[in-house]
């Protein structure tokens, strides 16, 4: 017994050391990203401005982008391969959106900027591995899933958020390297808050939390939160970038700093699309999370739904995201208004995890803050 307890304490200690180490590496990644943006600002490409204000013909076809001609190999019936020319697909952006190319990314095409960007990414991967180790040892030390209190929730949430980012990068389907700096910054803030204000020594759960539904409910909630986070950052940057593009078209003055930062981001339409895809993709999972929570509440407390503050705010978050999805299909609400709704929805999500635990008491306030 005592031996086991000592191992657990050692593991908990290891976990703390790992979390602090991860913070240190994230800090380095943060600086590397800063260098990436600084070196990137040397680039004088200013493509967006050129695309929007430069005097070309107003021909509608001007906005077409092409995916390039790709040569592909196809197996033929008799076992050999033939080389086919993949035809060039000409795409046009949807009606209503401007035809603006995406920015070149944080490094702005600068060689040194690019190098710092790669260093930042490498450091982020390292920090992610260390933090994941921290979460894992924490889980081992308490012999349960690592989300029994807000400290554990925070370290797990931030690690999963970085995992989602790295996963999206690895899938290569979306261009989201611009997310690096905002992500690392928020992760540092979250971890900083976790180790100072929210820290709770490792221990087991009260019986109400012993349930596999807890495992399902909280793990999906954390994952949804991480993905909603990516969606929210994309939405926020969309709002900035959209204002920037509008101002460019109107010929208004924009500060050099804003220009330098914003022209390197993807186009507003790209960010908007990305935000939608990310939010829409997890919305069914978020729906499932709430239902799983109701099932768990049903078996733990005898009531599926009692309008407990946590349940209420999950519901509010859900309705707010439904509003966002609806707004995108409602004339007069697309674009900036819908984006604001997405931000409100994410704010509701955050409030549910921090605000409700701290300011409101309810059945969920086991969390020992």
């Amino acid at each position, binding site marked *: 017994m005592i031996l086991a307890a000592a191992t657990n304490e050692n593991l908990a200690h290891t976990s703390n050391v790992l979390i602090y180490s991860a913070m240190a590496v994230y800090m380095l990644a943060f600086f590397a990203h800063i260098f990436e943006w600084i070196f990137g600002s040397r680039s004088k490409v200013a493509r967006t401005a050129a*695309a*929007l*204000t430069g005097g*070309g013909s*107003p*021909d*509608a*076809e*001007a906005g077409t982008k*092409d995916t390039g001609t*790709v040569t592909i190999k196809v197996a033929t019936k008799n076992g050999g391969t033939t080389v086919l*020319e*993949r*035809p060039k*697909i000409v*795409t046009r952006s949807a*009606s*209503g*959106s*401007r*035809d603006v*190319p*995406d*920015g*070149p*990314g944080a490094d702005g095409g600068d060689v040194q900027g690019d190098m710092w*960007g790669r260093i930042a990414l490498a450091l982020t*991967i390292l920090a992610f591995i260390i933090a994941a180790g921290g979460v894992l040892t924490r889980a081992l030390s308490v012999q349960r899933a690592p989300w029994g209190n807000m400290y554990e929730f925070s370290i797990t949430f931030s690690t999963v958020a970085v995992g989602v980012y790295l996963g999206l*990068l690895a899938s290569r389907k979306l*261009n*989201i390297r611009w997310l690096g700096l905002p992500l690392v910054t928020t992760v540092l803030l979250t971890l900083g808050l976790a180790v100072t204000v929210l820290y709770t020594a490792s*221990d*087991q759960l009260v*019986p109400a939390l*012993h349930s596999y*539904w807890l495992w399902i409910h909280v793990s999906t909630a954390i994952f949804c939160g991480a993905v909603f986070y990516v969606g929210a950052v994309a939405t926020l940057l969309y709002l900035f970038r959209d204002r920037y593009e509008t101002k460019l*078209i109107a010929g208004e003055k924009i500060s050099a700093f804003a220009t330098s930062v914003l022209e390197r981001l993807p186009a507003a339409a790209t960010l908007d699309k990305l935000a939608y895809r990310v939010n*829409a*993709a997890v919305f069914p999972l978020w*729906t499932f999370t709430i239902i799983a929570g*109701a099932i768990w509440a049903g*078996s*733990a*407390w*005898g*009531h599926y739904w009692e*309008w*407990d503050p946590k349940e209420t705010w999950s*519901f*509010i978050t859900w309705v707010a995201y439904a*509003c966002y999805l609806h707004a995108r*299909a*409602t*004339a*007069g*609400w*697309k674009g900036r208004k819908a984006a604001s709704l997405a931000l409100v929805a994410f704010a*509701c999500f955050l409030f549910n995890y921090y605000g*409700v635990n701290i300011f*409101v008491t309810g059945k969920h306030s086991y969390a020992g803050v």
Partner: protein
Amino acid sequence: MSDTDTHAGRGRAGGPDGDAGPTGNDGPAAPEEAPAAQGETGGEEEAGGALTRDEADAREIGAAGSQLSTAPREEPLMAGPRLGPIGWARWFWRQLTSMRIALLLLLLLSLAAIPGSLIPQSSADQNKVDTFITEHTTLGPLYDKLQLFHVYSSVWFSAIYILLFISLIGCIIPRTWQFVGQLRGRPPGAPGRLTRLPAYTTWRTDTEPEAVREAALAVLGRRRFRVHVVGDAVAAEKGYLREAGNLMFHVALIVMLLAFASGSLFKSEGGKLIMEGDQDGFSNTLSQYDDFTSGSLFDSGNLAPFSFSLDNFIGTYERSGPEVGTARKFQADIHYSAGPGDKEHKGVIKENHPLKIEGSNVYLISHGYAPSVTVKDGRGKVVFHGATPMLPFDKNLSSSGAIKVMDGYRDKSGKKDQLGFAALFVPTFGGKGQMLSQFPAPDFPVLNIGAYHGDLGVDSGVPQNVYQLNTKVLKPFKDAKGQILKQSLLPGETMKLPDGAGSITFDKGPVKEWASFQITHQPGELWALGGAIAAILGLAGSLFIQRRRVWVKAVTGPDGVTVLEMAGLGRSESAKLPEELGDLAVTLIPEAPPAPDPDADDAGEASAAVAPADHAEGAEK
């Protein structure tokens, strides 16, 4: 690591920069005017003067882009009718079932849910509500009037969700018909100029147009598109499941609401405290409940006739560490039978593991101690012997209760009287001073008793709390100093009442525990679960499946070579469309191999892509 990601944007931007020029008329207001789904407003009113690119597009795409979803058409909110009452009713219905009002109601619903999470709710804790009202003399009554203490059953909250669901039904029915119509119909024919579509490709081939169309029908059909030939083009559509999923989701929401509504109308819910080893236990009739609530359509004749009793309660607690005293395990070992004819079964109820029996769920809600005492009267006769449940008031289970001796007691002179003992119980006594427990397990149990006699008021008809004595009516026994007679007892110890009025003994042996159970019966649970599963599946279909159309047009050009054009249309968010079109093209190429370009000039790539289109259009006419 992800080199391509960094450079993807650059590569594209660095391409034919001259081509990516401005779109002059495309002012900042353009997004606002954009149609809901492409082409939704196609061919509608024409603003005088120059068309924006979008308007031009919408007109070009026309019917080909219509009904890519079944979303209701947007109508201007302010277009009030000039008609009579029927006109107004129609106008009102149209507004209520419009996307805009649905959105507004959804927004209202989320806003309306907020106060209930910040203001104490009587459904959760009536005591908190009462304290709030006494503490806030102005806000309290105001909140009460606004029904803010029961937000989720308030008139205004109900009004919002009922309107929302009326709107939802009003939306689903026409959409379903429309969708059935779309399923019966065929994909619309190709628009005039395929180049206007979001994804487009073209090549020249020596295969005859007829054969190209045949091949396209086969290729698209194999990919499970619905296909047919319209004029000189093959029209194909896929992804109807998106619409089906969306409709299923919205219908599932209604099913869930109805399930909850019927559940709360027919539900019954009650609490029962049972002592360890109490042979009578509980049988499921109305009179057995300590407290009971039910929906307005509940019929007590429908209570299932099961019964159960508590054999043993086990509670374990953290013995060390920072969270010492925190509960680790609660378990109630029970015996139950499903009805009079059924034999007894053993069972276990734990937190998270209710007993499901005859459509009801039995939950373990709380637990506490029931110290056993023996009371003798003035003549030395045992007039009370048994355990009395005490209510815990802190997390270490310091508890309070009342031991009432109602019948049989006679004082020294043989006169009938009633006895009442105000009891405090601590499972782990912390030494001198306060009766506050140090630990929730019965490590060092102590019972503190204050003694009273007189009329317990049991027969007065006024409902009274079994855990409290009405000390205003009762007379205390006094000790030598004139104070209320009060004493802390260890198991086995006895407190003598003054003047030979009898005695009370805290019985030796392990202290009994009690557990309280909640018995709920809520019909419609399965419907709600089914609705929830359908909602998730429907949502997944609605959000993951893309509905898209593909057209393959083949016409003979003036030089006798076939010009093949392919274009795709989907919702603006669909990113996969160009990719899919590329894949389709690749599968089509073996059947319609590209013919050598007559003017082998690859400088003007972009214009090459456009030129055949105009060409084709000419040929079509």
